[in-house]
């Protein structure tokens, strides 16, 4: 048991250490992690997007995903809102708008590559890594398939291969990690005909976005989505209409996901440290109480026994006394009788009675 316990404690130790150190970064630190300085990202400007689905096609090709249910040039799929799936790392949705802009607005959805990813902090085998490039990548060789990352992701991105009986994987955009480390553009960015997508360093993208807003204030909402949402994301957005009108949640707040669980995690060492002490204390009190009760009981028993003994002794003494008394009485009686006998003898002698009678009397007395 000591081994398991030691191992257990070392895990807890690991939990505490990784909360204060390291890029896993995540829990219980009051430092704000604002991303790797040189990390990359993509800026999506929905005022430039024409909803052609070329990015979907590009993504499908570079990632060698299975063919789409409907061909990529079939724009009728835009009639219904879609989400990322195990077969599509990115999808484009169309939103009608009745505002100042003419025509529909489009939104491209894919993993936002959060600076402090909820998926990574939720995974219990660390299958996700936020790399220095900015990409959040996934390692299927350790994934257990618990799908907690899907619960955790606030943007509802990770998808799962539900039809795989034995080797299901989590599927999501990789920011084309294998391509960007080779200096290539992400597939979707390369495929985009209108430069609605811009790849670059996140810092530069933020500057570009700000410039566009200040240059065309009437064209843009004055907010860069992803700059601070959920602690900031590598994918950034500019929009001509309020974000909620294109299905983007504005109520996510700016707290990075790992901070949401930091409190609960930091309580672990407390419980492990305090409970044994408190419980052993309670146990000791209980034991002590029981001991006192037991001692009192023993005392009572001893007292009772003592009393019983005394009583028995008294009884014995009484009995002895009585016996002695009886003996005395008997002796007295004997003496009396003997005296009477003696008194009789002269009278009998005087009456000249036969001696047989005198011999008979004591025999009767004895019986």
């Amino acid at each position, binding site marked *: 048991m000591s081994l398991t316990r030691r191992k257990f404690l070392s895990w807890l130790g690991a*939990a505490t250490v990784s*909360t204060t150190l390291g890029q896993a970064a995540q829990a219980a630190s009051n430092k704000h992690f604002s991303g790797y300085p040189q990390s990359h990202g993509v800026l999506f400007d929905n005022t430039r997007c024409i909803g052609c689905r070329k990015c979907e096609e590009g993504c499908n090709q570079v990632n060698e995903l299975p063919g789409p249910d409907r061909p990529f040039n079939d724009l009728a799929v835009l009639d219904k809102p879609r989400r990322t799936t195990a077969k599509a790392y990115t999808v484009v949705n169309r939103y009608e708008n009745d505002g100042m802009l003419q025509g529909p607005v489009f939104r491209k959805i894919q993993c936002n590559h959060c600076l402090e990813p*909820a998926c990574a902090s939720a995974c219990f*085998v660390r299958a996700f890594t936020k790399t220095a490039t900015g990409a959040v990548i996934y390692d299927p060789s350790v994934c257990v398939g618990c799908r907690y990352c899907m619960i955790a992701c*606030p943007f509802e991105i990770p998808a799962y291969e539900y039809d795989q*009986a034995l080797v299901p994987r989590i599927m999501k955009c990789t920011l084309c990690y294998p391509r960007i480390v080779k200096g290539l553009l992400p597939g979707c960015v390369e495929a985009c005909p209108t430069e609605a997508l811009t790849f670059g360093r996140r810092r530069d993208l933020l500057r570009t976005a700000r410039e566009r807003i200040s240059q065309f204030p009437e064209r843009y909402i004055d907010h860069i989505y992803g700059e601070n949402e959920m602690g900031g994301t590598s994918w950034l957005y500019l929009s001509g209409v309020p974000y909620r009108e294109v299905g983007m949640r504005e109520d996510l707040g700016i707290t990075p996901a790992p901070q949401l669980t930091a409190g609960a*995690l930091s309580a672990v060492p407390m419980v492990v440290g305090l*409970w044994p002490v408190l419980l052993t204390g309670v146990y000791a009190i209980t034991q002590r109480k029981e001991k006192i009760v037991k001692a009192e009981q023993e005392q009572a028993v001893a007292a009772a026994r003592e009393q019983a003994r005394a009583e028995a002794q008294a009884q014995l003494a009484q009995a002895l006394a009585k016996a002695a008394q009886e003996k005395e009485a008997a002796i007295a009686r004997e003496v009396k009788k003997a005296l009477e006998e003696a008194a009789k003898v002269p009278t009998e002698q005087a009456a000249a009675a036969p001696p047989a009678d005198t011999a008979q009397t004591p025999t009767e007395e004895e019986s």
Partner: protein
Amino acid sequence: MADETAAASKAYLTPFNMVAGIIVLLGVIITVLRFTGGLAAVTNLSDYNPWGIWIGFDLLVGVALAAGGYVTSAAVYLFGMKKYHSAVRPAVLTGFLGYALVVLALHYDVGRPWRLPYPFIVQQGSTSLLFEVAACVALYLTVLFLEFSPAALEWLGLKRARRLAVRLTMALTIFGVILSTLHQSSLGALFLIAPSKLHPLWYSSYLPIYFFITSIIAGLSMVIFESTLSHHYFAAKMDANHLREKDGIALGFGKAASFILAGYFAIKVIGLAADDNWHWLGTGYGFWYLVELVGFVLLPCFAYAVGVRDKNLKLIKWSAVWTVLGVALNRLNVSLVAFNWHLPSGERYFPHWMEIGISLFIVTIGVLAYKFIVTRMPILYEHPDFQGEH
């Protein structure tokens, strides 16, 4: 000879055995489908709804209802309530079976069950609440196994091993309470990471505390409930001690449950106030929340209190069932009903009948195992060779 076999097979063809047999058969078929066709073949899970009743019911409800083990052994061994001693073994047994079945259910739900040890032996995702849950459940299952082992060893007549196991009682109880505190609360904390998906009435930074407190309530109520059932079906197996203590246990545990329910109600209201969620009460979800809070917390709390005051055992037993249902409702609300409340109804989850089939299958295995064990091992009575020794 032929008559005898006919009689024997007739003895096995009780309605209980037939229903259990059908469920097990169905379970085996669905198991084959699950491990050949994947989750898609037998569940309604989707990318929006990655967790269904195998997590919501089998894991969350299962673990809560198996809390009787740590609650009872802590009461008896740590707090010295010796008069409840005969409740320990049945509670530890149900705890052990409960956790074993939770782990079994997880083998259906996760994608690659043989990797379940990976979080411990390959890479530790220690920033994950799920890691804490997994670690504690694995360790606690071991603890429960050891706590249960004296009964099995007495049955097998292995005196030396039994004496060794009994000597560990204290340490195991303390360790069990720590582990239970951690994972019962962590199951609630699992949802802390998703404030944008769980309805504000159920989302609270107090979730871990709520889950921990309700696990105690569930544990107490389950002990009363099980003892009622056992008395009904296995009265012949109970010894005089057990029968004598039984009513005292119902009264004592009922009283404790009533108090803790009252406390739980109070902290739920405090939570409501802290997050200023009053305005949600007027909505449909608010109504459902009140059903849970008033109908399944406050009312059973009163029912218990009245039952204890009047020494009305029947009322106490019904309150126990009511409370257990309330805790189950709470777990299902957090994990399924109020989770993903923001999605359009077309994207919401409702279990596939085969998911329900597997859950039933697993519960049935539990009942069968319980039956097998209490009719053989000294659970409801003390083994004559070891009277008053533990």
